């Protein structure tokens, strides 16, 4: 096996537990990153087992076997296998009694589990209802056939209006608008998040539909970004990293 030669002696010592101090620390650090040396160490441990074989010949006293078997009989594993049926009739009653007690315990545990399950189901149903409600909201906001109607004072000529819904904690930004004027060729609107400090951050490029409506779910914003205001400018279709035209619409937090 190919190992790092400078560690070969120490690997042999370590396999025997004979390496101590700084040399052991250095080797252990190396082993954390060297698969070949780690494998060699495991093989060397296998080699050391051969030294142990050289002393076979002594035999443990018979009582050791009995002692061990009694100990493991007191510690049954998952599904003990008994290959012979006990001859004593009353033994069946003892087993049956134990089974009844076990059944009682199981019933109690089962009842507890049922309660937990019912609580979990209730919680899950509540969360599903909230999720479905959220989906309906988003679907309505972003649907292409959704009517966006803004009620204004009678006799007021139609005005562009937009609304942002922004959660700094989640970094989620939704923008809906209506009555947006048609754009010149090769131009698009760009939404800007104006932070408490610093330059405006691009929050999405969009074009209104033929009715002047917009539904935009902006790309995720950096979490925790606090907004002082939002603004819209007209930019090239691909968008701009910074506003290049006068602010067309603006709104501050309510």
């Amino acid at each position, binding site marked *: 096996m190919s190992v790092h030669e400078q560690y070969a*002696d*120490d690997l*042999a*010592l370590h*396999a*025997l*537990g*004979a*390496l*101590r101090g700084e040399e052991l620390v250095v080797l252990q650090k190396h082993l954390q990153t060297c698969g070949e040396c780690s*494998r060699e160490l*495991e*093989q*060397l*441990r*296998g*080699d*050391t*087992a*051969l*030294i*142990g*074989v*050289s*002393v*076979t*010949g*002594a*035999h*443990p*006293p018979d009582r*050791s*076997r009995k*002692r*061990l*078997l009694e*100990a*493991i*009989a*007191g*510690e*049954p*594993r*998952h*599904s*003990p*296998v008994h290959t*012979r049926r*006990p*001859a*004593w009739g009353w*033994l069946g009653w*003892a*087993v049956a*009694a*134990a089974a009844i*007690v*076990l059944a*009682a*315990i199981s019933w109690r545990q089962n009842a507890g589990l049922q309660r937990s399950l019912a609580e979990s189901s209730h919680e899950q149903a509540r969360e599903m209802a909230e999720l479905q409600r959220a989906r309906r909201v988003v679907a309505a906001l972003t649907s292409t056939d959704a009517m966006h109607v803004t009620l204004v004072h009678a006799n007021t000529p139609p005005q562009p209006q937009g609304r942002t819904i922004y959660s700094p904690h989640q970094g989620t930004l939704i923008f809906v608008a209506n009555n947006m004027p048609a754009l010149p060729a090769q131009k698009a609107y760009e939404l800007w998040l104006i932070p408490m400090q610093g330059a405006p951050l691009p929050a999405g490029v969009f074009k209104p539909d033929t009715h002047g409506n917009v539904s935009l779910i902006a790309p995720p914003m950096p979490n925790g970004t606090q907004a002082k205001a939002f603004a819209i400018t007209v930019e090239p279709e691909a968008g701009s990293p910074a506003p290049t035209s006068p602010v067309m619409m603006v709104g501050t937090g309510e």
Partner: protein
Amino acid sequence: MTIGRKVQSALSLCSVIFTEKGNDLPDTGVKGALSDGGLVAAIRAGDQSAMAALYDRYSGIVYAVALRVLGDSAAAEDILQEVFLSFWRRSEAFDAHRGNLGPWLTVVTRNRAIDRLRKQRPETDIEGVVLLTDHDWAQESDRARLLERVRRTLSGLPAAQKSALEMAYFEGLSHTEIAAKTGEPLGTIKARIRTGLAALRKAFAT
């Protein structure tokens, strides 16, 4: 007494009854023919007779190693119990894909015995013992051949090399302790141990 403790008592009673009923229990005749892998699978399923078969197969090696390290039969017997009981409780610690059971038990035993010798709390958790080896000691005839071959190989080593290996393995001495004890340079001790292990590997490479 809680219901849980009553159940435990009832099950303990059943266990005692099963044990006393079969003074010759467990019957390892069939299990004794299983491979190590078969025994381990049966033990993981809770088969006590498989554990008995495993004991019959490897208790000699385990006890002999512990006795050689500790030089005390009662202490060796304690180690023997610890090793097999630990295996019964956590046989999952043994990874059959990485080696055979006999060498693994031997290394676990030796490490536990060294811990006892150095009067340390047992530091060797069986789950921390990882080794790779191709040697299969499941058959009695294999073990006899292995013993003969190991003894021949070790006796063929230079005396100082064999002594360094045995001081590290059976006495749990560090290389600095061996150097101090023998008056040899550290580098010499390191080289002797490395070449000694290499000789053992080479002898069993074919």
